[in-house]
């Protein structure tokens, strides 16, 4: 990524200034040290870090769990703009969107440290309760069109729906668990998320699992930052890669 202001491009951040989702990112070098500054859309300094020589900065589209509200939720609740009706005992595939946040990551060997994180879309990210107010889950909310070109600030997700019941099913929402969800930078500058397999197993129950997508050559998987890794290791029981949800409604 070169240092000219213009279109947002994901990948290494060299010296220069960049416009990303309304923010201005400035990377300076001085005697081998790097300084990272982010100016908010209002022009105030939102983040400032100094990095030791030898560290490489990356701009990545990251699953939306790193913002300060991250402790509140561990899932993404995608409400489809229109329900998808699936025949009985059939398989179908639709393209949906999954949100991401921009993460600035410092790379040092195999280790990835989070330097900064900010929302990709205009305005703050929204949350929603999935299920019961006590027993349910608080999730990052996203309203996704179906089979449309992904909008800026979102990743393409392929949703495979496998209907195993003897009735047609109308799918209006998908809940994605935090653990196991990977994002990839594709050569054209777009972002792809893990494929989602939704298996309808009962009159109201569906199982959600991830599947790694087939990617074009040159695609890069977004590295997991240490904070996220530690969190997943610390509380694995809360963050299953598989989830059973109620479909429809």
């Amino acid at each position, binding site marked *: 990524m070169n240092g000219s202001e213009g279109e947002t491009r994901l990948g290494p951040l060299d010296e220069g200034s960049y416009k990303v989702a309304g923010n201005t990112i400035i990377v300076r070098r001085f005697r081998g040290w790097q300084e990272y500054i982010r100016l908010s859309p209002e022009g105030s300094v939102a983040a400032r870090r100094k990095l030791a020589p030898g560290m490489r900065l990356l701009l990545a589209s990251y699953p939306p769990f790193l913002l300060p*509200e991250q*402790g*509140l939720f561990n899932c993404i*609740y995608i*409400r489809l703009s229109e329900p998808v009706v699936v025949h009985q005992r059939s398989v179908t595939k639709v393209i949906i969107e999954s949100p991401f946040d921009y993460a600035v990551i410092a790379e040092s060997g195999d280790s990835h440290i989070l330097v900064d994180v900010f929302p990709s879309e205009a*305005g*703050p*990210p*929204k*949350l*929603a*309760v*999935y299920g019961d*107010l*006590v027993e*349910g*889950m*608080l999730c990052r*909310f996203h*309203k996704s069109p179906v089979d449309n070109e992904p909008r800026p600030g979102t990743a393409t997700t392929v949703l495979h729906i496998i209907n195993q019941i003897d009735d047609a099913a109308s799918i209006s929402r998908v809940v994605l668990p935090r653990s196991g969800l990977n994002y990839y930078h594709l050569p054209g500058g777009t972002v792809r998320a893990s494929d989602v397999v939704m298996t309808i197993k009962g009159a109201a129950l569906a199982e959600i699992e991830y599947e790694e997508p087939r990617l074009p050559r040159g695609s890069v998987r977004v590295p997991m930052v240490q904070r996220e890794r530690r969190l997943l290791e610390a509380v694995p029981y809360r963050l299953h890669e598989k989830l059973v949800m109620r479909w429809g409604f």
Partner: protein
Amino acid sequence: MALPVIGSLEPPPLVYDAATALAILLSSIITGFLIGRRVRLLLQARVSRDLALIISRAVSYAIYSLGVIAALSQLGVNVNVFLLAGGVAGIVIGFASQTIAANLLSGIFLYLDRPFKQGEPVEINGVGGVLHDVSVFSTKIRRWDGVLVRIPNEEVFKSIIEMPARSLARRIDYQIPLARGADVARAREAILRELEKHGLVLAEPPPEVYIESMGEYGTLITVRYWSPSKRWFDAKISVIENVRKALKEEGIEIAAPRRIVELEEQGGEQDNNSAGEQGN
């Protein structure tokens, strides 16, 4: 010829009884100590340290008391008097310590029921704050203003306890009085737009804005939305501020009591004979 008997080889009865009584006393002390310690170790994993200590001591003292009674009995002392006196004293103490016993039992039941956790926001009997500690006799809450409040366990056990953090989300309601003549539809749109923009207002359950009533001063609008329980207060104070700004930018007036003074001319003199509180 029989030798004269100069004394028995057996110890005299009093010495024998005293030695037996001492042995009973010592063994009861050792047994009471060991059983008490065992009870404390067993209970520590299940209940609080304080409660485990109290129960283990009660067990130890009961064994010591039995040892004392048995030892006295061995010495020929009529223990019935003590038992009777103990019974009477027990009744008297029982009546006198009714509140203490109630608090203790409530404390034990609170331990078993565990309706709340340390550090959890709670409201008990109208006292809201963070739960600081539950001990044998009382529950302590650090109120929102920082003051530590002690509530007897009996009262806690009988009270309605609110635990707002147990829900993922909490509903917040505001009422906004719009001035008479204000464009209610435009106000509603502006408020919904603000709620949509705010990160702590949940998308689902969705927010609602509706006319509550047509009041004396104008139209009363209710704004209702849900927010994550852990950020409830942040949401409460920031949303109302944003809504106020949005309404101001839209030029929508908030109703307020006004005093209108009507001046009438009477016989060439001005007189403010009509004054009162009216809606605008």
